[in-house]
């Protein structure tokens, strides 16, 4: 805990940052003014959310059914928002690209969900959860938002339990919880290794109940391709029915994007194959700011790539690091040997060597980066992918000798089975191989305290927004944010906006609607008419390689400049050499992919520019030019304690950088150290 814990929220503990370096000069246009209006209430941090709920206007129940709300995405954030706004009586239209809302990628989250319930009487509190989250995010998240997140966390558990989410229980039938991600209290609620699935099904069922009640209409196999902005306000979307190919116009009083993260910009990631940035990127091109796009979380314990055919990466629970020892051979020539034939003295247990006090349990960003360093040195193991072997051993031999195979099986059975199914190797006999992979993005569309983007009437929730995780997301906090936004925050903030509604009637002949629709149709025609020789997938793979190499775990000024040039060339080639077969008036997965890939390419360029500008190492983002003498990440709070909110600069134009200072009043910034 910070000794200076000042919960008053009245004293500023840091001054405004002054950026001295400008590595990205020439790649962007600076905005003349700072972005100051995030609209958080002032005063005591613990009272801010209560204040805002009281300040916000109400909407009479009889008027709610006259108000139309569009929600794009049906994961934890979108599904829970649809359920809650439907219950409240608004007329909700919910969109997802999958065949059922239940398949949104929140379903794949494994570990758990944090809540400050203090059931273990181990000293947890709203403040402590808030503190851990801000510190874990390397002081690049927004204080007011995170405090609110911690505040509503306990309500989430109540809500989910009431819905029948089967959380783990103790023998008295009360909720069990565990410690997670290096936190010193037990605040993580879980449903074995499938917490995301159970929470999502709870939200999905709540939403389906509203579908039956007629307050929510669900549009499955629909993809949002454009936002309709009328007189500066978001008033609807253009969507494509993925089965018939029909381009549909959906008008509303307010639009909510809950469309998830964009980790698939790296091609290989732990995201679902369909997860994409299109909804956010189309909104960005319409004027919505994209904040901190370069913030990517890399997860250290994934199953490594096995070859060029690889389509996605699978995460192995981090709990494995409790018992597994991580090593690589000391000598390069041993890398192709059977690991069991490499004697103890020829093994380098590098985490234990470099970080004796934390060893194999160092935080995610550090474990990831050191694994990459070992492989870059040529000491990686497993199959050759490109020029390197990309894998390190996670060895359970000591644990099996110490605890017995049965005890290890008891603890990790399902994970070991999953590993064997994917790799064909038995981890009880041969050490597992792991490698870091892209897992989650902390960047996203900029929102104010009310989760509203800079386009009035366009709200953004969950992973699609940027506000709560800073530069590094802690374990078990993604599920918490998704449900906090959807069940508790958005329903309370959106009503203030809707209190001005219903807004002026518009119809499909409105010029803004026609323009949005025409632009979608023209893009689709363009994809189909290029008639080149490369599939969208091949462009995506190439982009992914560039992003991973130059904008992944370690970034440098030269590398990023090179990446920007490569991406610009790739973009030019896309528009001249893409090949999409089939037609627009039918189910056409290649066409869907083409639209998503070009949006990823444009986003990739912005991510590199954002990374180039941010000359500091922060969270999972290690900038080679900013390290301590012994090679650890070095943050520069006095220069970079700001949110980088990028405005689209027009086709071919430079993006405009708006800065929002991050001022802390309840927590003092400190460097992290794990040595």
């Amino acid at each position, binding site marked *: 805990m910070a000794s200076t814990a000042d919960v008053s929220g009245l004293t500023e503990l840091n001054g405004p940052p002054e950026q001295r370096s400008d590595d990205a000069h020439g790649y962007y246009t600076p905005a003349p003014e700072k972005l100051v209006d995030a609209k958080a209430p002032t005063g005591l941090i613990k009272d801010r959310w209560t204040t805002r709920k009281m300040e916000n206007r109400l909407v009479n129940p009889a008027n709610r059914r006259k108000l139309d709300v569009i929600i794009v995405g049906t994961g934890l954030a979108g599904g829970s928002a649809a359920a*809650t706004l439907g*219950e409240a009586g608004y007329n909700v239209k919910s969109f997802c690209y999958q*065949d*059922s809302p*239940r*398949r949104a990628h929140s*379903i*794949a989250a494994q570990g758990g969900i944090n809540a400050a319930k203090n*059931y273990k009487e181990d000293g947890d509190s709203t403040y402590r959860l808030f503190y851990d989250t801000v510190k874990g995010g390397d002081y690049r998240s927004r204080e007011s938002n995170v405090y609110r997140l911690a505040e509503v966390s306990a*309500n989430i558990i*109540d*809500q*989910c*339990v*009431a*819905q*029948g989410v*089967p*959380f783990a*229980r*103790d*023998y008295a*039938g*009360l*909720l069990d919880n565990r410690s997670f991600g290096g936190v010193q209290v037990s605040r993580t609620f879980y*449903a074995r290794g*499938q917490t995301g699935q*159970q929470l999502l*099904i709870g939200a999905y*069922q*709540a939403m*389906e109940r509203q*579908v*039956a009640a007629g307050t929510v209409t*669900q549009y499955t196999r629909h993809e949002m391709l454009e936002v309709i902005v009328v007189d500066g306000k978001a008033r609807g979307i253009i969507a494509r029915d993925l*089965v018939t190919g029909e381009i549909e116009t959906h008008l509303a009083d307010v639009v909510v994007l809950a469309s998830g993260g964009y980790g698939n910009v790296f091609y290989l990631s*732990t995201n*679902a194959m369909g997860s994409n940035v299109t909804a956010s990127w189309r909104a960005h091109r319409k004027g919505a700011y994209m904040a901190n796009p370069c913030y990517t979380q890399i997860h250290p314990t994934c199953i490594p790539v*096995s070859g060029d*055919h690889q*389509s*996605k990466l*699978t*995460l192995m629970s981090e709990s494995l690091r409790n018992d597994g020892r991580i090593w690589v051979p000391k000598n390069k020539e041993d890398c192709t040997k059977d690991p069991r034939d490499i004697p103890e003295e020829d093994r380098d247990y590098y985490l234990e060597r470099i970080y004796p006090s934390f060893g194999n349990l160092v935080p995610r960003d550090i474990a990831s980066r050191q694994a990459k360093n070992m492989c870059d040195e040529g000491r990686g193991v497993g199959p050759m992918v490109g020029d390197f072997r990309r894998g390190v051993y996670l060895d359970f031999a000591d644990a099996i000798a110490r605890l017995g195979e049965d005890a290890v099986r008891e603890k990790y059975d399902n994970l070991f089975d*999953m590993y064997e*199914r*994917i*790799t*064909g190797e038995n981890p009880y006999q041969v050490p597992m191989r792991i490698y870091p992979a892209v897992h989650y993005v902390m960047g996203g569309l900029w929102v104010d305290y009310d989760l509203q983007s800079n386009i009035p009437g366009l709200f953004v929730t969950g992973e699609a927004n940027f506000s709560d995780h800073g530069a590094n997301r802690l374990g078990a906090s993604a599920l918490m944010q998704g449900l906090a936004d959807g*069940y*508790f925050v958005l*329903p309370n903030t959106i009503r203030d906006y809707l209190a001005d509604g219903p807004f002026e009637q518009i119809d499909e002949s409105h010029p803004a609607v026609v323009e949005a629709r025409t632009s979608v149709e023209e893009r689709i025609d363009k994809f189909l008419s290029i008639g080149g020789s490369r*599939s969208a997938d*091949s462009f995506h793979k190439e982009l992914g390689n560039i992003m991973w190499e130059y904008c992944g775990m370690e970034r440098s000024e030269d590398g990023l400049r090179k990446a920007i040039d490569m991406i610009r060339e790739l973009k030019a080639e896309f528009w001249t050499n893409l*090949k999409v*077969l089939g037609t627009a008036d*039918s*189910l056409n*997965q*290649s066409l869907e992919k083409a639209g998503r890939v070009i949006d990823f390419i444009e986003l990739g360029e912005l991510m590199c520019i954002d990374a180039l500008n941010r000359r500091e190492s922060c969270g999972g983002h290690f900038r080679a030019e900013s390290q301590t003498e012994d090679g650890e990440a070095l943050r520069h709070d006095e220069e970079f304690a700001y949110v980088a909110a990028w405005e689209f600069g027009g086709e071919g134009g430079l993006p405009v950088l708006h800065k929002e200072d991050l001022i802390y009043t309840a927590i003092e910034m400190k460097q992290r150290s794990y040595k």
Partner: protein
Amino acid sequence: MNLTLKIWRQKDAQSSGAMQSYAVEGISEDMSFLEMLDTLNEQLNERGEEPVAFDHDCREGICGSCDLMINGQAHGPEVTTTCQLHMRSFSDGQTITIEPWRAGAFPVVKDLIVDRSAFDRIIQSGGYVSVNTGSAPEANSVPAPRDKAMRAFNVATCIGCGACVAACPNGSASLFLGAKITHLGELPQGQPERMSRVAGMVAQHDAEGFGGCTNIGECASACPKEIPLDVISQLNKDLRDALRAGY
């Protein structure tokens, strides 16, 4: 590995479909089954033939999107989802037949993609607890016995893929239905609506055109999440109780 694939191609719901043969070469045994199909599609695209449409998303066995009949078995020869099936389960030179889920209540949309929205409508007919946001009591105010909570969890792992229906000679969705009835029925929160839930869900199941259950058990053996067959006994018991009570 070199393989011969016999794949169901169907332009859309209105058209009739047919099996077509494709040769694929250079398949690694480390590929997942879906990566093998990606490879085929990349080759088809190069040749100017439209790629094969199939449903997939998370590719880590949890979203329930993937749904292929492989050599007549739902998800193929292993008890897992298609995305977690790897080519080392097949041998060089083998012929593999790939079809969409077979069931009248799952009409084909295109190629290997079927429409499983009937499952959503079954959930809409009662597969939830009616609690509005904000009205939930403190979580620990209602204890749930540990063994019951564990059983609820074990059956709540259903991913809604529909393999049970595809494997059933009657095209019954009783395992899917039984899993949800048992999940909510084992928990105290599920009790108030227990009778209306089972009556509503079974009525919707029948209205969607799923067949009746005759205890063949193919569903449970095809289920990638190993939902046990006894959830169907639970379903029948709850339905009997509901009908007796006049639901």
